[in-house]
C-alpha cells in the first residue's frame, strides 16, 4: 500500500476544496438555508406534522441528504475529471499506485468535504427549525456511508465523462429528480398507492428514510433494509471502480 500517494492525493484535493471555499462550502450552505427559510419557517408553519414531527423539522434530514448527495457527486466527479481534462492524469496512470490508493485519496477527500458540509448544514438548520436526534451514532454512520458511496458514484461519473456537459448531466438529470422524489420533502406514505410501490425502486428513498429514522425514530422503510441498500450500493460502486482501473476503460488506450 502506497500510503504516501494516498496522502498526496488527499492533500491535493483538500487544497482544491479550500481554494474554492465559497463555491464548495458557502454556496450549498446558503442554498440549503433558503430551503429552511421557505419550506421550514414560512410554509412549514401552515403545514401539518408528518409522522408526528413538525414539517420544518421533518425536512431537515432530507435536505441534508440532498446536499450530501449532490455535493459528493459533483466534488468527486470534478476531482478526477479535471486531471483527465488537463492531461495531468498521465502522472496518476504512471504512478506506482493501484485503484485502492487512488480511491482512498480522491473519494476520501470528496467524502470529507461532504461530511463537513453536512455538519455545517445541520448546525445552520438549528437557527431556523428545532430538531432532535434520537440515534446520533446511526446518524453519523448514515452520513459517512452516504458521503462515501456517492463520492464513489461521482468518481465513476468523472471517469466516464468526456466533457463538462456530461459531467453535469448525471447530477442534474438523475440525482436531483431521484432526491426530490425520494422523500426529501414528504413521507412516501403520503403518495397514492401505485406511486408508493414505484418509489421503492428509488435508492434514495432508503437513504433518506434511514437518515430520518436516526433523527426521529420514524421511517418509511425498515432501517435495516435502508442500511443493507446503502451498503449494497457502496459495494457496487467499488466493483465498478475496480473494473475501470483493471480494464483501463476510458483511462488507457
Amino acid at each position, binding site marked *: 500500500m502506497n500510503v*504516501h*500517494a494516498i496522502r*498526496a492525493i488527499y*492533500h491535493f484535493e483538500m487544497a482544491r476544496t479550500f481554494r474554492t471555499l465559497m463555491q464548495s462550502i458557502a454556496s450549498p450552505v446558503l442554498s440549503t438555508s433558503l430551503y429552511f427559510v421557505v419550506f421550514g419557517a414560512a410554509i412549514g408553519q401552515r403545514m401539518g406534522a408528518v409522522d408526528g414531527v413538525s414539517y420544518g423539522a421533518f425536512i431537515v434530514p432530507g435536505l441534508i441528504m440532498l446536499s450530501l448527495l449532490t455535493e459528493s457527486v459533483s466534488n468527486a466527479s470534478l476531482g478526477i475529471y479535471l486531471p483527465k481534462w488537463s492531461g495531468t492524469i*498521465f*502522472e*496518476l496512470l504512471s*504512478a506506482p499506485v493501484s485503484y485502492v490508493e487512488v480511491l482512498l485519496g480522491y473519494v476520501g477527500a470528496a467524502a470529507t468535504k461532504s461530511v463537513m458540509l453536512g455538519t455545517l448544514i445541520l448546525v445552520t438548520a438549528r437557527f431556523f427549525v428545532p430538531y432532535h436526534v434520537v440515534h446520533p451514532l446511526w446518524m453519523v454512520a448514515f452520513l459517512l456511508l452516504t458521503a462515501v458511496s456517492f463520492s464513489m458514484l461521482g468518481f465513476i461519473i468523472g471517469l466516464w465523462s468526456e466533457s463538462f456537459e456530461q459531467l453535469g448531466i448525471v447530477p442534474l438529470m438523475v440525482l436531483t429528480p431521484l432526491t426530490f422524489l425520494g422523500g426529501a420533502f414528504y413521507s412516501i406514505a403520503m403518495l397514492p398507492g401505485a406511486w408508493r410501490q414505484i418509489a421503492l425502486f428509488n435508492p434514495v428513498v432508503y437513504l433518506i428514510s434511514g437518515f430520518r429514522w436516526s433523527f426521529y425514530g420514524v421511517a418509511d422503510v425498515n432501517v435495516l433494509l435502508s442500511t443493507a441498500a446503502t451498503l449494497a450500493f457502496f459495494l457496487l460502486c467499488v466493483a465498478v471502480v475496480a473494473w475501470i482501473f483493471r480494464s483501463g476503460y476510458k483511462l488507457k*488506450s
Partner: protein
Amino acid sequence: MPDSTPAAPGEPIVRVAGLSKTYASGLTALNSIDLSIERGEIFALLGPNGAGKTTLINIICGIVTPGGGRISVAGHDIVREYRAARALIGLVPQELHTDAFESVWSTVTFSRGLFGRAPDARHCEQVLRALSLWERREAKIMTLSGGMKRRVLIAKALAHEPQVLFLDEPTAGVDVELRREMWDMVRALRERGVTIILTTHYIEEAELMADRIGVIHRGELIVVEEKARLMRKLGKKQLTLQLQRPLAGVPPELGAWPLELGDAGHALIYTFDAQRSDTGIAQLLRRLQELNIDFKDLHSSESSLEEIFVNLVRTRS
C-alpha cells in the same frame, strides 16, 4: 515502494521483448519491438512524428496498455510488478500537462508522494534550484511561461529520485538557453547513474547527447547502434576539390572513380567509404596530376547523422 534491490549490474535496466501495440482504431503503432537499455546510458529514440516513439515510452511508463510482448524495468515486470517498476521511473511528457492553480512547490511535493516517497524538503529544494525554479516555488503554475512549465514537469519527474528518466521530446518548442541547460542537466543526471531515454526528432540532439541511438520508423525499430559506430557504419565520406579551372564534365579518364561535379564545374566531389583501408584518394590525386587538373583547395567531410537517418528511412519506405 522504491526498489531497494536493483537488478544485477550489467543487466539491462529496461528490457523490451516482442512488444506490439495496435490501438482500438486499428492503427498499429508498434510492431514487435526488442530493445535493451543499459544502466546509466543516454539512449536516444529517433524517428519522425507518428513513428511510435511516444507509444513505446507510454507503454513502459504504464499510460498505454501493451499489446503483446514483455517489458521489465530493473528486472520488474511492468504489469505484474508495476509498483516496483514504476517507482524507478520518472517521465517528462511531450505535452505541457500541468495543473493551473497549484504552486510549483506543492505540485513537486505531490509528485514525490504519489511515487511513494516520504516527504523530503531538501531533495525537492535541490531539484528546484537545479532547474532555476527555486525563486518561483510559490508561483501558481498557470502564471509561468511555457519554458518554465517544462522545467516544472522535469522537477516533478525528478522529485522521487528515479533511476530511469524518460524525456519525451524534451526540447520541442524550447528556447536555446533552456535547451542547453537541459542538456547540462541530462549529463549531470547521468553522472549520478540515472539512465536517460529521450525521444527526439532533432537529429543534432541525438548526435550531441546520446551514447546509443535507436531509429524507429512506422512502429519498427530499424536500427539500434552506438552513436559513433552508427555514424561510422552508415556514414559516407566526401572529398571535395576546388578546381582552378572549371570542367564541363567528368573526364572519361577518371571513370574508375565515382565522381560528381559541383559548384558549376568548379568542384569535383568524390564519395568514398571511410571504412575501407584503400580509399582510392591517393590514386585519384595522382591521376589528376597526370591529367593536369589543378585544384586550389580540398576538404573532406563525414555525413551527418541527419543524412544517415534520411537514408535509413528512405530505404525502408
